[in-house]
């Protein structure tokens, strides 16, 4: 059962129960929806982008604890960051979730996102943890209003 404890850490359970920045962002100038057609989970990510900088950020939707916690942590981590920061953090998170050894995670600035490391033992749940991130990237690119995990 230790893998379960590793997956459902207190920080994740807390962000699931009380997701941060969980509302529509009235000042948003970018948004994108992410859906996981396999499970019907859906998230909308709102961004207020000023030039290269994410001034404010929020999300709405429904999903499992992993999806919600990852989205909530993402909004906390990315406020005030640049596009390049966001891309780099996504790459680091992806490496963390998939156990990709080619990415050096020692100075990645994952911070609190480290709590998602337990997802690695549950490959089927990686899509849950990245759903909101894919929506965030689509919102930054503003090329597609909806992205899918498939």
């Amino acid at each position, binding site marked *: *059962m230790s*893998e*379960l404890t590793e*997956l*459902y850490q207190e920080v994740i*359970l807390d962000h*699931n*129960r009380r997701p941060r920045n969980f509302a529509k962002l009235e000042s948003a100038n970018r948004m994108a929806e992410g859906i996981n057609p*396999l*499970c*019907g*989970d*859906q998230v909308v990510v709102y961004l207020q982008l000023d030039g290269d900088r994410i001034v404010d950020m929020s999300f709405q939707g*429904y*999903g*499992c*604890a*992993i999806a919600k916690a990852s989205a909530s942590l993402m909004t906390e981590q990315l406020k005030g960051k640049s596009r390049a920061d966001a891309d780099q953090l996504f790459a680091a998170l992806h490496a963390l979730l998939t156990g990709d050894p080619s990415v050096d995670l020692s100075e990645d600035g994952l911070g609190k996102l480290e709590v998602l490391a337990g997802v690695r033992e*549950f490959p089927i*749940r990686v899509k*849950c943890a990245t759903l909101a991130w894919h929506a965030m990237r689509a919102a930054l690119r503003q090329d597609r209003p909806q992205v899918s995990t498939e």
Partner: protein
Amino acid sequence: MSTGTRMSQPTSGGAFPVQRIRDDFPVLNQRVNGQPLVYLDNASTAQKPRVVIDTLSRYYAEDNANIHRAIHTLAERATQAYERTRSKVREFINAADSREIIFVRGTTEGINLAAQSYARSVLTEGDEIIVSAMEHHSNIVPWQLVCQQVGARLRVIPVDDDGELLVDEYRRLLSERTKLVALAHVSNVLGTINPVKQMIEMAHSHGAPVLLDGAQAVPHLRVDVRDLDCDFYAFSSHKLYGPTGVGALYGKADLLEEMPPYQGGGEMIASVTFEKTQYNVLPYKFEAGTPNIAGVVGLGAAIDYVQQVGLSAAGGYEHELLDYATGVLAAIPGLQIIGTAREKASVISFVIDGIHAHDLGTILDQHGVAIRAGHHCAMPLMQRFGVPATARASFAFYNTREEVDALARAVDAAIEVFG
């Protein structure tokens, strides 16, 4: 915790020989994540008895040849084995004639065949197809495609909070515009057994034929297509303890005779010239190309096995299991069962306050308990009940009360994690 009150009687003492039946299913005898496997995802696909596995292996080892073609001995044996299954399916669902049994890849292909061959050639603009709010996507999307192709309209029978179809609303939807009714015999999410015989009679009084999606019904109920008087009936082998990739579509011979082929190719022809092709007779007109011969032969073994267990004894046992599981799950605080129809097959969908079905699925799996979590390919029904997803435990005749208890213990553990 509520677990302490769950002291079930061992099932082996009952009239139904579940322990002996479990021994017929090799896959059940294993541990998953260190716990004995509790397989409760039978509505997705059922496990296979050894006799089905052996039949597939023996077919390939001893008889493999293409059917209805060559003169040689193996081809003769393969053809006989394939056609014997057609007779078994005819008998199993009490069709009048083996020509009315068409082998397909599964329920989905059976419905698509009826949609593209029957509905598309018969319906015109302004006509209506009626489905219900509890259909699987495979009994929605094929009809939407036809509607787009011919300009027809899809009408939907609503369900009530218990998960029963509103038959009075259905009565109101029926009209001279109704050209086809397509219904689940048993709901894959709610377990509801629909009053299809009555609904077929109502459709026929308006001259509309009825297709039944029998995927969830054939593993649990005795199906008699002549007593039901349905016009089409589709089901899959793999939910009936048979191989994947094969199923059957029953159609009344007079309808099938009039229908154009679904696919072109070998087998479905009588003669071909570049000017004109004569189609083969029923059922071969609808079986283009080399079919899943081994799968069909395996389905025959599965039907024999189910007949030997006895559908009425198995159905009775499954019903006891359903009642027991319903009681045990309903007693868990915060758990709500979705689908409380009076007539149900052994399927229980549920949601738990504050726990998403996927998280539940992961935690149960760590306890060796396999359930389905998600929208069950029935997104409109999920919307009807206002939930993005449910957890679903579905029981077969090899499941036991002890396994229901294991499910409940695992649910308790999940509630503890999410406290």
